[in-house]
């Protein structure tokens, strides 16, 4: 989310999220998430990421029927 906020803040010319530091700095965990995980995540195409997420357990894997959308004249 921090990486996305940096991109969006730059687009709209508003102050970006600060890199975590001081009391909020979580050391190498932040280095990993921002420096390794985000570039790796972004390198994977959305379709693949989406497919992985959809294979995780959850309500989305239960039965959900698309509501029927009527086409053509209503009368």
């Amino acid at each position, binding site marked *: *989310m921090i990486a996305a906020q940096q991109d969006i803040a730059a687009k709209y010319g508003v102050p970006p999220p600060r890199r975590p530091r001081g009391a909020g700095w979580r050391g190498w965990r932040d280095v990993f998430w921002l420096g390794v995980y985000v570039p790796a995540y972004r390198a994977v195409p959305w379709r693949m990421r989406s497919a992985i997420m959809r294979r995780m357990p959850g309500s989305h894997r*239960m039965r959900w029927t698309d509501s029927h959308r009527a086409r053509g004249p209503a009368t």
Partner: protein
Amino acid sequence: MRTVLVTQRIVAIGGGAAGIGAAGAAKATDPTADVRVYTEFEDVGYSPCGIPYVHGKEIPDFERLFLATKETYEASGIDVHYQTEVTGIDTGQKSVEVRGEGTVSYDKLIVCTGFEYAPPGVPGGDLGGLYYVKNIRRAMEWDKVLDGVKTAVVVEASPLGLEMVTALCHRGIETHLVDPDAWALAAATDPDIAGPVQDSWLEMGAKLHFNTMLTGFVGEGTVRAVSTSDGDIPCDLAVVCTKKQASTTLARAAGIKIGSAGGVIVDEGMRTTTPEVWAAGDCIEVPHSVSQIPIQGLSGSHAYAQGKVAGTNAAGGQRAYQPVSVPWGMVAGEWMIGGVSFSETLATALGIPHVVGVAEGISRARYYPGVKKLRVKLLAEPGTLRLIGAQMVGAEGIKERADFLAMAVRTGITVGELATMENVYSPPIGALNEPIALSAQNLLSGLGR
């Protein structure tokens, strides 16, 4: 005396929007059923969402938040057990353990255990003076406390946080907002949408501390300051508005399956993975209509509708719920903000491909008194140009547009269709050019179409 043959016992755990919706629907579907609701609180059938507006004095008293009396539920045949805690579920024996009542059997069970605020996870979390907005009786007590509060800190710019900052400013309390993100409601909104809200808070006297980590609550017995990565903020009260987490302790202990978003797994009928057990409201997760990824922690209107589905089906009826596109809206500062589905920030964070169109329109005819600016941003899927998200900020007409755009997302309407939409033109209520259509047209122009 007329005797009614009870056909089945339906037990709902939880008396919030989902639990009461479920009980009402169950009784309507099977009037002969013994429908029981167990709630740990003193009341059911009120609107907790109205609490910030009583604190802000927009609503004069808490009594107006009650939607029905206890007698109303009695008269409708719903047996509500107040201040009664359910401590366990035995799905094998089809019974619940109730404190003070012992083992109570059920034919159908509906789990509506709601949410809990995420723990702040910092020292001092057990101090007095930390207000978690949830229960109306506690809110009545806190409202009296607010009369003596000079300085308050709101922790996190969540939807509730936005409402509480606005309410406390209206109350004349010096209000600080502490949030780790770069702008308000940063997961759901974009900075161009949150910007006007933040400016209006500053005009109302609020002190905004974005990009600021909460590090502790300081005091002896009662909070006297909130510690942050940028120093201590002295205060009389801290309102903790952290993320809503599904309350699944009972369900999890009973072996009812929990999903990747942290909520109880349900299908379109609100059936859990356990026979004869349904679930609804903030304790469940449901699929998002665009991404098909499960999400959790929605609004009261979602919880109530889910409860209706669960109650109807538990009682033997047939009703289905739909994947959600999550229209939302609220008053924050002097503005209304709202949207549906993805913001630009969230779509970027998830890596969902999207194209964006933005337009600033007006809410009424340009010459009509009270006309306000209205900014509409649309997100569409590249290629198909199906609408996948929207964001808005204005002073009126946000809720109706969010509802409309949610249907547009659900039904797969494209930006091309929105660009040529028809719209109401009537000077007091609508301008010649609909801002949604202008935004769609700008999106198409940006693509050279």
